[in-house]
């Protein structure tokens, strides 16, 4: 893939040499200039983003139709989610979008160290998003196991029946089982169609989480290449497109957050 820019000079070369890698970059043989190649890669990437939007459009459409069919189940289901976790994750992603955009600017200005720091920050934000999602949301809802410092735990202090991993995890009786479709086993549900809500919730957030992981992989790749001085004012296609991808990941969450957490 052109955006994986490995066509440029071989990896692992001596970066102490006379010219940094980004200055030695040559566009593909079928391009007249590096600018044309950059324009084409960016255009191609915008088209790819359009396909991503349409992919999620299918999920949003399913959400709309099923919510219309079962408004009560969706309202009930949504009330199990804590908007504060969603809001925290929104903030985390917004910060990461800023650091991503700033890192592109840093490479355009040849501020190599700053660019790498910003890329690393973006990666850490992505990791934080996933950790919050898995530790405080997915795991307790699916299994009833809370991490011991989860602030929600004090509501259920009387219902803790088990401890695991030397007290790091605590199990709340009857809390888990909020799983999609046929795996649903939550005993206190108030609506027969709640399993469907969880199906939509896990499909939408799960596929989004997969995109976060893909985005983080791209950022890690950029970071590795940036350490070889592969990006600079005249060549930063890969960082640019990774940035576009990361903004899309952010944008989709901006839509998922109100739909899943805020509308009751």
């Amino acid at each position: 893939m052109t955006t994986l820019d490995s066509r440029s000079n071989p990896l692992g070369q001596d970066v102490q040499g006379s010219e940094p890698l980004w200055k030695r970059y040559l566009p593909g043989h079928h391009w007249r200039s590096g600018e044309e190649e950059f324009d084409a890669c960016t255009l191609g990437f915008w088209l790819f983003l359009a396909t991503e939007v349409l992919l999620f459009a299918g999920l949003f459409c399913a959400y709309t139709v099923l919510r219309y069919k079962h408004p009560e189940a969706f309202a009930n289901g949504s009330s199990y989610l804590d908007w504060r976790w969603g809001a925290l994750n929104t903030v985390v992603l917004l910060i990461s979008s800023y650091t991503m955009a700033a890192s592109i600017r840093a490479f355009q200005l040849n501020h190599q160290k700053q660019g790498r720091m910003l890329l690393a920050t973006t990666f850490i934000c992505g990791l934080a998003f996933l950790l919050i999602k898995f530790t405080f949301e997915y795991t307790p809802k699916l299994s009833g196991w809370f991490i011991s410092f989860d602030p929600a735990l004090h509501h259920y202090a009387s219902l803790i029946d088990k401890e695991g991993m030397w007290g790091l995890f605590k199990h709340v009786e009857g809390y888990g089982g909020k799983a999609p479709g046929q795996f649903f086993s939550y005993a206190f549900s108030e609506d027969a169609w709640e399993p469907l809500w969880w199906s939509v919730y896990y499909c939408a957030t799960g596929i989004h989480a997969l995109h976060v992981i893909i985005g983080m992989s791209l950022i890690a790749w950029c970071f590795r290449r940036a350490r070889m001085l592969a990006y600079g004012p005249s060549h930063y296609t890969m960082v640019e497109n990774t940035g576009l991808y990361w903004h899309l990941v952010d944008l989709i969450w901006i839509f998922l957050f109100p739909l899943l957490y805020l509308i009751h």
Partner: protein
Amino acid sequence: MTTLDNSRAHELGGHGHHEGSYLTPKGGFLATVWDWATTVDHKKIGVMYMVAVLFMFFLGGLAALAVRTELLDPVRTVTVQAIDPATGKPMIDADGKPVMKTQIVGQTLARWIPPRDGSEITSIDYGNQLYNRAFTLHGAIMVFMVIIPSIPASLGNFFIPLMLGAKDVAFPRLNLLSWYIYVTGSIFAVASILLGGVDTGWTFYTPYSTTTDAEHANVVLMVLGAFILGFSSILTGLNFIVTVHKLRAPGMGWFDMPLFIWAMYSTSVIQVLATPVIGITLLLLCFERMFRIGIFDPALGGDPVLYQHFFWFYSHPVVYVMILPAFGVISEIIPVHSHKKIFGYRAVAFASLGVALVSFLVWGHHMFASSGELGATVFSALTFLVAIPTAVKVFNWIATLYKGSIALTTPMLYALMFLFLFSIGGLTGLPLGALATDLHLHDSYFVVAHFHYVMMGGTIITFVAGLHHWWPKMFGKMYSQFWANVGAWTVFVGFNLTFFTQFFLGTQGMPRRYASYVEEYHTLHVWSTVGSFVLLAGFLIHLFVFIHSLVAGRKAPANPWGGLTLEWEAASPPSEHNFDHEPIVTHGPYDFETTVPPHWNAKDYAMTKVPAGAHAH
């Protein structure tokens, strides 16, 4: 392909360049295979797609013949006198009365493929299930693995950069990735077939696709195969859009592009915008089947009609992914082989975009029976809009032929057949788009005949036409026009015999997807089956013509038909980098009245009106 002798290929074309053709082997056999497997050359990728698509066409064709063979005879239960296996004589009971037993006859597929556990066939169900599998495989293979990639991925890959005067597509390595994704998806589908196949119909409608064969993974494999193929389609379309935007030769404005490029551009837009929707749909379908998440399952609160909406939101636009490239090929063949400027260039170009636009608004006409009255009426009205840009194209092609210097070459013969068959296919679409007649005709053989006239009479016939048009350019060899024309006529007769009969079957009430039927339909079904074997014979003739051409064909000139588009300026077969120098566009793609075709040689083809300044080589 790789064993061709192309050592003299550099002599072709008369440009005096010294580079070998793209077919020149790189070293020994293994080195050549490795070279092809890792190539980023759009021409080699196009040829690999062509081989893969033709192989899948063969598989899908086998399934079609299985369907037609089963329908040779209606499956029915008859009561016959039992035969004593010991004596071989009819059995008689103690009272002297004959012993009767019921027996199933007419199950051809069941005789060929007995049950796996070796048990005797005692019910009609087994044969019916085999039949369901046969038509599902036929549909799924032909749609996802043959028709969708046929023209875009093979001819499109090969000729879009050549026609634009470019060295390659915008993202060559992404292009190779698309090919590998296509192969991976096809392997999933073939694995599903080898494990016993799928009986859901090619549309994978829920609940068939979520409930049948619950113990097998076949459906998941097939659906995942289609999901993976979708990525190949998206990436190819994306690549083409960027190529058209960014890699046109100097001097080539948007309205100087060949119409094939316009058609491929419109196709790519649909591929990029529609395919992601089927991607998420098939993914949800896999989740539904593996985890029973319930989005399409009414027992868990889901909505099976939602699946139909999703499916057709993709699959109707994709009908135009199938037919628009065919329009593009016809727009090339007709002007070149009648040596006349295309009539209404801009109208044809905009009609392609018009079809692409309308394609997104008509998916509901596949669901007249399952949607409300208001929705059905709106979708019916929108459906008729499709007829406008389509008819614009057909009329323009016919106007191009008028007073042209028509050469009845094999590609031209096929193009004329296309006009005939596609007109029938298009016009029979109108009664299906009108609500009143559709209620009578839907899910009948009329629908089957209609879409075969459009899909096969439109796309496959044109794919074969395009192969014959560009074969000399792709492989540097001519083929026997006589035998290719014999093949073309055989295909034409076989095609009409197979599918025209089905219009009658449909209007008489024969429903689609049934293994059995009442006696009254027998004659027409037999004719249809005979036609399908004539069709097979026609395609086999073409196969032999092509093989003969590769082995013993005459060396092709650079411009055998007198075309003006840029691919005819390259050598036959083209060199690795397509052109010696970047071409500069100085004339329109169809200015036959004023331009001498590149590499013109009076021996190759006749020009009735020779433009001023022309001199034969």
